[in-house]
């Protein structure tokens, strides 16, 4: 049905990922804050994971839409 769910999933996780990476970079010297996550800057690292995941979803959605257009043109 009309909407390829990979678009919103990709967009949402990229957006959240970018926010987390940004915040992770701002707070990179805040060792006190990251004590609870065992001295790992989880915002930065997990933010990157989310950006990669979101990006992969967007890529798949984009390729899917190109294929759909190509298929439609072939028919025409």
């Amino acid at each position, binding site marked *: *049905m*009309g*909407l390829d*769910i990979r678009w*919103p*999933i990709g*967009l*949402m*996780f990229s*957006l*959240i990922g970018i*926010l*987390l990476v940004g*915040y*992770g970079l701002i707070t990179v010297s805040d060792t006190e*804050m*990251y004590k*609870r*996550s*065992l001295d*790992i800057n*989880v*915002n930065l690292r*997990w*933010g990157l*994971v*989310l950006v990669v*995941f979101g990006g992969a979803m967007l890529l798949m959605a984009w390729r899917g839409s190109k294929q759909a257009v190509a298929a439609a043109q072939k028919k025409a």
Partner: protein
Amino acid sequence: MQSVALGFLDYAILAIYVIFVIGIGFTLRRYMKSSSDFLTSGRSIPAWVTGLAFISANLGALELVGMAASGAKYGIATCHFYWVGAIPAMVFLAVFMMPFYYGSKARSVPEYLKMRFDERVRALNSIAFAVMTVFASGISMNALAKLLNQLLGWNYHAALWICSAVVLVYVLKGGLTSAIYTEVLQFFMIVLGFAPVVYLGLRDVGGWDAMTHALNGVSTDPAALHLKEAGTTYASNAWTSAWQPLLAGPKNNPMGVDLFAMVFGLGFVLSFGYWCTNFLVVQRAMAARNMGAARRTPLIAAVPKMLFPALVILPGMLAVALASMTGKGYRVPPPALEASAIEAAATAVKAAPQPALAQLIESVSVAQNGVDPKTGKAKKLIGFDQAKLAEVLKGYADKSIEKAETKDRTDFVNALSDTVTDYDYDGVIFSLVKRYCPTGMLGLALTALLASFMSGMAGNVTAFNTVWTYDLYQAYIAKNKSDQHYFWMGQAITVVGILLSIACAYFARNYNNAMDIIQLVFGFVNAPLFATFLLGMFWARCTGTGAFIGLFGGIASSAVFHAVTIASGNAPGVKGGYLQVVQTFPSEMAQNFWLATFAFLICLALTLSISLITARTKSDKELEGLVYSLTAKLKDEHEAWYLRPSVVGVLLLLCCVILNVIFR
């Protein structure tokens, strides 16, 4: 539990999530033209989407919270709910049952029953299902609102209404498609939100081997951590082996369950009854775009389901391991003390002379749990570490704790909670989130929690509106109306369904005991269900009268079974044995599994025998496409192996066996 403060970023992540799910609803709105678009997605969705939605609808928050709790209480044996109690049934649904559900063109499970049997069976099933979904979603919403209240200090009513409103908006706009699409989004949200917490927990305890080592120590003396009564002892692998403690008998595993009840009761009766007949999950597969996609739906869902224990059970085990390690400063969270119980303790501290410890515990327990009218004492005593409690009382005797909202008062409440040795296992997962997540990650994990609640509620609501519109309204109230009329009814009942869920949430909040009874009754109704489907799908001779009486007999026999059995440690009453105690089971879980087994067998025997003595009302021709022996087999030999359900199903079962062997 102390509440945590959310930062701006946490709210931003939460807001982004809400905007996206509502956005999906609004985007889909223009495709909603008929009742089938709205209620059955017009059968147009690809298999990977329905597959992930299938698992997400099942992964409501009660599952997330409850499985971590069971992981803490019972250890790795909780995985049986996945590797024994889910995967085989999901494979069976895909290979054997989906062809009939999808091929019959039924729009719901009750409608299939009507085609196969008659109106009576459909009415019984659809009414029970409709009531059950509303209650299930109410219970889960109540749990959510309570949790947000305890965890974040949010207002109970606001949390309840706002979450329901979000679900209402996207389901009302985009119907089942919207629910399925957002469930996929929620699936990824739950996995990506909780995975880092599990990773950090595992790192904190020092890896898998360190966790196993710690849990071995816990197993030999679970009473030291207040996990079991004093004197209980198990073999050292009780928390870390799935099968060996089970084989050693109910006295030797923390679940208190025997092998037969586990494999037959859970693995066959309960699990097949849920996965193969519950419209909540089956509906997702029925929305797939073709027969192949419908059959692949449960198989695709089985892959994450098989791996989920790492995400939902492991945290519970990590929590117990952490709690057993000195120097980690972690404890399994205590239940939240009621304001009145805190007040009772504060008054006792300030009294001169202070009351004796036993007397204090009694009065605090009365304030927390109420009075048992028979004995005139507290219904249940709160467990306290008495030495610690005495120290707290002494320490606060000369501090000012009368006024709420002061630092001394807050410290006192925390110190008091810390002496409680009862556990709120449902709080385990959030105690870990709180422990490891800084601002940012915290927002992500909480959004994942909200996502799981919303996917559960949306799942219930979309199943409810379909059953109401097609199986109750169209069948019995207003036949032969235009499709636009049913489309309108589907939307109207969505609003009603959510309002009813909210009402049930309030009911669950105020009448906890009544809720226990209602859930009990649903247990009775569900227990025999699979016998009816099994005979109906695989035995053409099975008649409507046989099925109907069999179902009723099964339900009645579970009620009787419950009235004459009890789990050890429980007093006769709501928990069973109120007529007479004929059999005592080592645990409630064992009692449940045996109850299901009993009801299933009674239903099977009744349906069989009554079918044989009643005349068939449906000819072979009418049963074509509904019964196994009268339906042409689906040919898929020419397809690639990964598109053939039987091949994939066997592979999945094989993986499942391997997992069981690894964690035996």
